[in-house]
């Protein structure tokens, strides 16, 4: 792909004040329209990398490039960067600071200095996109975790970001709402929003992502398409990833039966079942 990077990290290192090295010479980037999943164990540096992408953290060494220009950390540049790159944090409670849902969602749009009518339009659109119109007059603290997560996503969407970064979107969310969230991300992506999410769920990464970034102890262990990543036994063992079930079954089938060697590996349960039905 020859598309340019929207946001790119070049040899970024970062150490937290308590001495923990969170990132060491990390280089990676995100291109327009991608669906990327970042995998890695706890403490691998996923969140720290995300916080660098919208300028919350400043690299100790190395640079962050936004549309091929080095990110400057003055007020104006940060505003520009953050209006294009939005993070939805792992714990929605730290992100929702208003008493009411409608007010909280309007927060970011008002910070962009938009006129009232436009803010209203955007909040309504965000409520509709995330499918939470019934929550608009609710009190923030009375919502369930899944609902708070959706409100947090709507709060990011009102800024009309080019890139939406979501930290562990499916943690503590039930299976049905997980699927709803994934459908939402696909819908946003089809409208042109680049989506970057972090997850521990290999099945999710396998079925959803176009590209995977695997982080390990503050470095990028490997990035590439899901099939290449999960077929690399050495890599998966080192970084503590297990192979997605569909891929595992597919590999076993390929060894025993006559599946053509150029057959595409099944990305989800349905394709795998269809493949099995055809074989048996």
């Amino acid at each position: 792909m020859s598309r340019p990077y929207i946001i790119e990290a070049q040899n970024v290192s970062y150490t937290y004040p308590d001495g923990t090295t969170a990132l060491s010479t990390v280089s990676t980037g995100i291109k327009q329209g991608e669906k990327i999943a970042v995998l890695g164990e706890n403490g691998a540096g996923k969140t720290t990398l995300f916080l660098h992408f919208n300028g919350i953290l400043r690299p100790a060494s190395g640079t962050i490039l936004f549309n091929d220009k080095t990110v400057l950390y003055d007020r104006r540049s940060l505003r520009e960067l953050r209006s294009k790159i939005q993070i939805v944090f792992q714990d929605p409670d730290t992100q929702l600071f208003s008493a009411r849902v409608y007010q909280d969602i309007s927060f970011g749009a008002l910070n962009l200095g938009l006129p009232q009518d436009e803010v209203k339009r955007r909040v309504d659109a965000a409520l509709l996109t995330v499918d939470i119109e019934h929550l608009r007059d609710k009190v923030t603290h009375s919502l369930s975790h899944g609902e708070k997560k959706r409100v947090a996503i709507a709060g990011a969407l009102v800024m009309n970001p080019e890139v939406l970064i979501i930290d562990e979107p499916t943690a503590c969310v039930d299976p049905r709402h997980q699927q709803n969230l994934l459908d939402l991300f696909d819908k946003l992506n089809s409208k042109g929003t680049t989506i970057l999410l972090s997850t521990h769920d290999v099945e999710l990464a396998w079925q959803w992502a176009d590209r995977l970034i695997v982080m390990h102890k503050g470095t990028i262990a490997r990035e590439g398409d899901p099939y290449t990543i999960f077929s690399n036994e050495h890599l998966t063992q080192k970084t503590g990833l297990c192979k997605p079930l569909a891929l595992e079954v597919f590999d076993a089938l390929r060894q025993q039966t006559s599946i053509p060697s150029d057959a595409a590996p099944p990305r989800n349960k349905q394709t795998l079942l269809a493949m099995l039905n055809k074989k048996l």
Partner: protein
Amino acid sequence: MIAPDTLAYTNRLVKTHPAEKCLLAASMLCLNLATPAVMPVCCMIFCFMCCLTIFKARIPAVVYAKLLLTPLFFLCVGAGTVMIDLSADHFAFISISSQGLHTAIIIVCRGLGAVSCLLFLCLTTPVADITWLLAKLRVPGLLIELLDLTYRCIFILADSAATITTAQASRLGYATMNATNRSLGTLSAACIIRSFVNARLMQQAFDSRCGEGPMRVMHTPCPISKKNIIAVMMASIIIAACSFIG
């Protein structure tokens, strides 16, 4: 028991303009504190506000009574102390003078009247509406933000305190007196640490949503009703008149 805060969002008067409710509560409170005819007027105000809260806003009477208990307890303690006269002149050291009794009754009446005004406001007006009104009244933004954030964080902190307490109790943290002391100590320490962590995470989220300076949010305005304003004024005038006649 349903938290008073939930009632503030679900009662029948929630859609009434906050200014009307504040005006009523404030004018009744002023009359209650200023009236020279304490007994009749304060009792009138108390009954009026009680009825409004219970019948008009449909706050369950049981909840209302329970909420009234705490201030009533403090009032009784205060009135009791005023009522008792300690002196060495009489045969008995402890006696009840008619002067003391009178002061005690005045304290209870004024106190109850004031509490009913505040309860009316708390139970019918969400905090978000009150902060909106304060902003309209040109209260400095910093104070309003503090109020808003404190309010929001109370629930987050209460949530984590409850979770920690459950975790402690399930490991027998409150089985003995000593264990209870220890658990309460670690609980408060954990809450403080958590507050700092939460504050940092919140600041990150604030920055990331382009927050700078004042915290701005949208409000969906509701219309002011002239009828209600007139009703509030009438009620105030009637009660003010009563206090002169009485």
